[in-house]
Each structure stands twice: as C-alpha cells, then as structure tokens.
C-alpha cells in the first residue's frame, strides 16, 4: 500500500470535528435532518438543445449566496485579500499567496495507490456538513425554462444534488457540487453525475467559471463524490495551450465529439469538445474516466468554457511522491498538483515561494505530474477503446513516429501586430 502524508485543507467547518457525530438537532445533511428541511432550489432545463442562458440567474444566485455567507463569517479567511498575480512568461501561470489556507496541524496519511475505494461513513463526508454551508440544490426541472425557488421541501424519494461552500476557498465563489448527497457515493465518476456537472457549467454560461474533479490518488481528500468550482477572470494556462487534433474515423464518432491532445504544455492530457449534445460529450468523457478508474490510473478533469471544453489528465505525481521520486525542492513548496494546479493556478503558502514564483518552477512541478509519452500513449489506447472512438490509421503511424519528439517547440505566433497609426 502506497501512502503519502499531507496536511489536508478543510472544505467544511465541520470537517475537523472528527469522531462522534453530534447527533441531531444539528441541521446537518444526513438522513436525520435533510429530508425534513427546506433548501433553495435551482431547477435547470435538461435539454439536448441547450441555448446558453443569458439571464445570469444562476451566477447571481451562486455569487449572492456566497457573498452572504462571507458576511456571516463562514469562511476561514477572505480570499480576495490574498495577493495574486500572473507569472511573467508565455504560459501565464497564476499564482496566489495564501498563508492561511493550509492548517497548522499534523499531516494525515492518504492512500494513493487505489483510485476506487469504498465509501466509509466513519470518515468525514458531506452528510456531516451544516446546512448553512449549503447554498442551494441543483436539479433537473420539468419545465422548459429554468427557475429558482427560495425554499423548497425535499421529495422523500429523491436524494438531492447540493451546492456547498468550500470554507478554504482558492478563489471567490469556490463551491462544491455534490451529486445525490444522501446516496453517499464514493469519489468516482459515473455518467449521470458527470452530466450534472456539465449542466452546472453550461447553466452559468460563464467562460470564467470552471469545474474540476480530482480522483483518489490524484489529490482528492474526501472519498464522497464531489466536483469543485470557482470563478477566475483570466484564462487558465492549459486553456491557452496549443492542441493537436486527433482525427477520428468518421463512422465511429457518431457523437461528433472531437478529441485533441495538448502540445507544448508540461502535463500530457486529452481535450474533448463538440458532440451533438451535452449528453453525448459527457458520456464520452465519463466513459474515458471510468476506463481510467477501472485501470487504477489516477486522473483529474477540468471542465471549462461553460461545459464545452473538457480536459482529462491522467497523472502519477502522488505515486512518485510515495516512492520518494520527487525532488525535495518541489516538495517544500507544498503544492499538491490537483486539477487547479495542473490547469495552471497555484496557491503558494510561503511568501518566498510566491515572490520567486517563475514559469520555470511551475513547468518543472507540472512536468513531474505528467505521464511519460509512452505511458500516455498506452493510456490513450485504453481510453479510445473504452469510448468507442477510433483514430484514423494515418495518424496512428504519424504519432508513433513523433512519439520521440521533444515538446520544446515554441508556439507558432499568428498575431501579427500591425501598427496602424493614422494621422
């Protein structure tokens, strides 16, 4: 069994009360309290032909609720008071100085060699959080228009999807999307939950609101199914990275999903976009994730561009760390490369690291996360088989030839800057 020691950040004010559940009257999210509670409800339209909503309602709801919780003092610190900057360089890595995010306590041991582990009700999970940390429910509505209801009772037979705050936010608006909280699903992707996450991204219709997922072994610390999300008004470096399209044989790609791979980025990954519908796109990616889970390969998923662009990163950092293969210098910065870090957003806890943060450091850290080229191609083969996508023969041969190619090539500039001063 491979484990690493790290100090987890807490996502809930109830997380540190490990041990005895306080019994009820605590207004938690367990089967004791939730079914007789009322929560705000946002109902989205689960429709194949989704037009991006322009009325900004979900954003106002999420941000308004979040700001209200700030006023109530539920967060461990004011994240907007943390200095942040874009590191100079072509990639535009974003660094934040946040000395208060990590707890000052003894590190906990995490198992990193099993991506699928059964749910353990004795450990912290989201049924134990207080209802004040829940902002609203997010469910598929029956009508043809999205709506919001301030106070809605729970249906006895439905396990609700809830959106809760992360009390140690990385950025403003940092929330957790917890599908079917009462079902106590372990941290593993399934098609239905993944589609819920895509709908959440699509419903905000905001390119600066991203969702992320970390599998066990890829720095998820809570084994209860959840996605994270927050707003950042600049592009993530991975969103700007060049991609190379992987041409697919026409008849296999019935879903019209397009796949490409990242080039000139320190972490190897796949990018999925297109699809005849959100569901088609979601199913392809979910199948890819399930394949990785079944093969015990840890991975991270970044949902960007309002659910239209999805990045999948198989990774191996935790394993390397457990096998003592990561340099001490990188370990000392205590950055655990989960989905946000891989995307290019890093929270640094020491002022020295923040001030000296360079593109070179970010690149070196993330390069440790990436699978090697050979391993990546192997993993891709599993993924393509599992999703029913078939690469065209020509490119398979070309890829094999190029697999030895270095990733040092610079981006071809295609922004000619004309000086158009007219008198």
């Amino acid at each position: 069994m491979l484990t690493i020691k790290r100090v987890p950040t807490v996502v809930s004010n109830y997380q540190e009360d490990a041990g005895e559940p306080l019994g009820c009257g605590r207004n938690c999210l367990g089967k004791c309290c939730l079914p007789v509670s009322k929560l705000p409800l946002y109902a989205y339209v689960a429709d194949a032909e989704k037009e991006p909503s322009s009325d900004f309602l979900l954003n106002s709801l999420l941000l308004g609720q979040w700001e209200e919780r700030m006023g109530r003092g539920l967060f461990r610190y004011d994240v907007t008071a943390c200095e942040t900057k874009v590191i100079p360089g072509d990639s535009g890595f974003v660094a934040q100085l946040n000395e208060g995010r990590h707890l000052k306590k003894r590190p906990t041991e995490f198992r990193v060699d099993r991506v699928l582990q059964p749910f353990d009700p004795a450990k912290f999970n989201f049924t134990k959080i207080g209802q004040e940390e829940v902002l609203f429910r997010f469910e598929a509505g029956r009508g043809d228009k999205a709506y919001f209801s301030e106070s809605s009772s729970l249906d006895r037979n439905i396990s609700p999807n809830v959106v809760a705050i992360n009390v140690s936010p990385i950025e403003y608006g940092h929330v957790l999307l917890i599908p079917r909280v009462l079902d106590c699903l372990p941290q593993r992707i399934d098609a239905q939950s993944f589609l819920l996450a895509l709908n959440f991204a699509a419903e905000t219709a905001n390119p600066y609101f991203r969702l992320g997922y970390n599998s066990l072994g890829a720095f998820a610390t809570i084994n209860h199914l959840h996605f994270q999300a927050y707003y950042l008004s600049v592009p993530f470096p991975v969103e700007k990275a060049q991609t190379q399209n992987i041409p697919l044989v026409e008849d296999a790609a019935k879903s019209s999903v397009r796949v490409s791979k990242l080039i000139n980025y320190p972490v190897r990954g796949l990018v999925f976009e297109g699809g005849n519908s959100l569901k088609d796109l979601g199913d392809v990616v979910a199948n890819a994730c399930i394949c990785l889970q079944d093969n015990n390969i840890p991975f991270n998923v970044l949902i960007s561009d309002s659910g239209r662009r999805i990045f999948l990163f198989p990774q191996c950092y935790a394993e390397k760390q457990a096998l003592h293969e990561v340099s001490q210098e990188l370990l000392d910065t205590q950055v655990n490369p989960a989905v946000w870090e891989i995307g290019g957003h890093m929270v640094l806890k020491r002022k020295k690291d923040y001030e000296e943060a360079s593109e070179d450091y970010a690149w070196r850290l993330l390069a440790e996360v990436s699978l090697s080229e050979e391993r990546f191609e192997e993993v891709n083969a599993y993924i393509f088989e599992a999703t029913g996508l078939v690469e065209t023969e020509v490119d398979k041969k070309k890829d094999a030839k190029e697999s030895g190619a270095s990733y040092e090539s610079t981006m071809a500039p295609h922004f000619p800057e004309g000086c158009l001063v007219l008198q």
Partner: protein
Amino acid sequence: MGSNSVRDRLVDQSLTSRYSQWVLEALDELEDPFLITDPAIAGHPIVFASRGFLAMTGYAFGEVLGRNGRIFQGPATDRRSVMEIREAIREERTVQISILNYRKDGTPHWILFHMCPIFGAEDGRVLHFVAVQVPISKRRSRCGVERCGAVLGTCREEVRLDKDLDCSHHAREVFVDMDSRGLEAKEPQMAGDQEKEKAANAINCILSALNRYSKMTGRVVCGKRCGSAGSGVASLPSSLNISLGRIKQSFVLTDPHSPDMPIVYASDAFLSLTGYSRQEVLGRNCRFLNGPGTDYEVLKEIKKSIHGQQSCTVRLLNYRKDGSSFRNLLHISPVRNASGKIAFYVCVQMDESSKNIDNGLSPEMWQLGAVGAVKVAVRSLSSSAGPSRPSQ
C-alpha cells in the same frame, strides 16, 4: 424607461456620437465584410455590419445590430479559437485567426478573422473593436495561382478602384466560394498571405475612415494607444467594462483613492433607475442622489462603514434626475483587486417599491449577486491595469 431602450439608444448612437453622422455613409461604401463592436455597452454588441458582411452571411442589418459576435459561432467552431478572440478583447489587442463561422442558413464557412481595437486619442480608452472577416478559399484556387490579389482582371475576381478612400488598395475580391459550403468545411483551413493582405488592407481603410470622421467631432481616434491615462476620471480597462456590462443590477463603482470618491462606473440599470446619462454621473460623488428627505443619520452610517472598510446595507430616500424620490435599499461593499487591497467600493441600489424581480431571488440576494459578480471581475485586475498598459 427600461434599460433595454437605454441600451438600444447607445447602440444606435455608438458610431455617430464619436465619428459624426457621415461615417455611416463612408462605411457603407467599403466592400469588405466587417463588423464594428462597442465594448462599453453591456453585452459588447455589434454596432455596425458592412454590406459585404451581410451578403457573406445572409443576415439583415437589423438581425445583427445589438447582438454579440458569438451568434456566428456554432457546434464545429474550435473553442480555443473563440478563447483567443475573447482574450484579445480582454487584453485590448489585435488578433488574426482562422475560424469556422456559420451563416444565417446554418452553413459553416472558414474565415480569416482580423480584429483590432480603436483607441481614443486623448485618453487611450478602447472605443470600438473593428473585425474584418475574409472568406478563406480552398487552397487550390480556380486560377491555379496562389496570390491572385495583385493580378487584375483574372477570372471570378472583381476589381475596383475606390478613389474615395485615399488608400492604395488595388484589388479586392468579393466572391462566395461555393465549394466550401458543407463538405470539407470542418477541416481546418489556414489563411494564406493573400487573405491576410486583404484583411490588413481592409482594416486600414476602415481605420482611415474612422480617423478622418472622428476629426469632425473633435474626438480623434487612432489604431494604436497613444494617449495617457485620462485627466479627471480614471477610466477602467475595457476588460473590466465588459465584465461589469454583464451585470444586470443597478450599481456604481466608486474610487476611494481619488478625491471625493467619484463614480468610475455606472450600470445601465442605474441610469434607468435614476434617469441620468452616463456622462452626467461619471466623476461625481453619489451624493447627487440625496435630497431634502434623505436621512442624515443613514449618511453618517454609510460614511462610518466606508471608513471602517466594512460593508453595510441601509435604506434611504433618494432622488431621480426629474426630482421624484424613491426608497433605496442600498448595499455598499469594499472590492479588492489582485493586490488584495481595496480598489473600489460597489454600491448596489434597489427601488423598494418596484416589484420587478420576478426570478425568485430575494432583493437582498439579488443585490449580493451583483456584489459577488463585481468582486470576481475586479479580483483579476492588477493595480497597474488601465489605459497605460502598453499594447503588445
């Protein structure tokens, strides 16, 4: 007066107020497909579409005016390319990119999209973006000649010499390439030198026209940021303007670092609520909303909160431009930028008597939603952001 009609008026006057009435005629004479957009209006709408653009895409002028450019994107449009354009807008710089767009009838076509910002000469603010869209022909052209641009009289080309525009523009092609409809349209088409040259020439002609007509109003523009940050009111970078423009609630941003804490941004909804125009409120302190019935104690409470860098919610009587009063549920909050320090205060107003929130959110939640959206937008602003940033 609803905020929609405020917006419609702004869209209609966007060009004429800056470049005079005559600019529309001049732009109408240009053959190339292009759009002009105004980032200071909520939603960053199209304020002009050339005849060539409408012919190329099959839309009517009224169908695109006031809409955002994303309506021409579709399912096969590469998302990364969309992001590149979005980022060029946010960073106020030129971009030239091949991208798949869609006509009104739903057919996709490849265009070379070349966009550049237009700056006001006196304050360096971005006033408009001009986007030329050159259709990309298939690599094997009918004539078998790559660079047809400089050759006169070849088949399928129309050559015009337009003396009115003063530019040495010798040949322009206006043709619709029937071959690229449907079929291989989804395979990436790269623009060649011919298309790039066409785009650059077109941009020059448009800028030339805008520059000339801007002199008529005395408010000159240029294609490169040449002014320094403004006298009087600090102007916000257009990236912030665009983000703030998405927020539907009535609010203003005030600058606590300038004397008397002036308004540096006012939303359309604020202008509708109070009856003032944007010019009338920018640079002024919010106290012009107060009047004889305004409770002095409440004003003291506001002042105390601001001094303490705290947020507060108060109710007070405020006055519109026409003298009528309304009960204002006012929420004020400090807003920090990337440095972590306070950059602005946001003040969100709500007329308590109006029942126009029909989306289910409580008034308080609706207001806080605006606060949150402002905080997200300002959070990424570095302290040195602003018109003084050099264009790349």
